[in-house]
């Protein structure tokens, strides 16, 4: 192989490498954009599902809170209903609510009452 042929071959290889590198860079860019889109879509989908679930009164935690409150109210008003309410209270305590503190449960009851209103 002559010297000039080898040089042109090297140039071709360099150009080809550059093209491939550029193609890979573009593919990487597309993949990153797709993942960003997927992340946004997953977040938005989960947010919407939870939002609608909560607002329509079907949220697992808030319905448990509402059940607890109903049970407490029932036990406060009559002795007969207190037996009933303790049963539903024990059922409700198996579910979880994020409310922990005093003020938190007050606020939570406000939010949950809006939820139960929307259901009725």
């Amino acid at each position, binding site marked *: 192989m002559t010297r000039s042929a080898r040089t042109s071959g090297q140039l071709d290889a360099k150009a080809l490498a550059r093209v491939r590198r550029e193609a890979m860079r573009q593919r*990487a860019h597309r993949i990153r954009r797709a993942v960003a889109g997927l*992340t946004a879509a997953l977040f938005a989908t989960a947010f919407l599902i*939870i939002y*609608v679930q909560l607002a329509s009164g079907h949220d*697992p935690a808030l319905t448990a809170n509402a059940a607890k409150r109903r049970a407490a109210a029932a036990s406060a008003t009559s002795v007969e209903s207190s037996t009933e309410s303790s049963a539903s209270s024990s059922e409700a305590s198996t579910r*979880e*609510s994020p409310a922990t503190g005093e003020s938190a449960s007050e606020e939570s009851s406000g939010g949950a009452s809006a939820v139960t*209103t929307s259901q009725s």
Partner: protein
Amino acid sequence: MHAIDPNTLATAAAPHLFWITSRAAGTAALLLSSLSVCVGLLMGGRIVKGHRAELRVLHEALSLATLGALLAHGLALLGDGYLNASLANIAVPFLGSYRTLWTSTGIIAFWALLALGLSYYARGRFGVARWRKLHRFTALAWVLGLVHSLGEGTDAGQIWFLAMLAAVALPALGLLVNRLLGSAPIPRSADSAPIPRPSVAR
């Protein structure tokens, strides 16, 4: 069920926006991390041949997206008026009073994922072989995250959540079991390169 008034919808959910954000971000993080584990195991095993550079970019992007979603998951709890969590409560295991064990599992999983994930960018410092051994523990951190979400997650009993999770976590678990049962990873030196470089045609 009666028709729901949009105003009532907004009123009911408005005080819970931070909580909803945290739950949605947690769900997204779980799905993204499962996908990332899938891609990682496909890369490391003998299942997919070729497209290594693309898979690596995909794995990296999914991992970074997972970390972002996990940050949103934790930080959104700081704004939640019901939980009243402090930064220490969401960052230090066994400190908070709310479902301490499950919460701590999630916190430990987050720190492990963060450390093991970001160590990719410093793998040259402590050796690629050592980094690859260390990186295998990412799967353990992911399993801890699964345990956290199923044990503590408010939506853990919901069909939509379980269906979404099963779609991505079961294949990842299958691949993980397949890997643990003996199919050795392909030895490769390309991992040491910080940026994938296409080979020059001969």
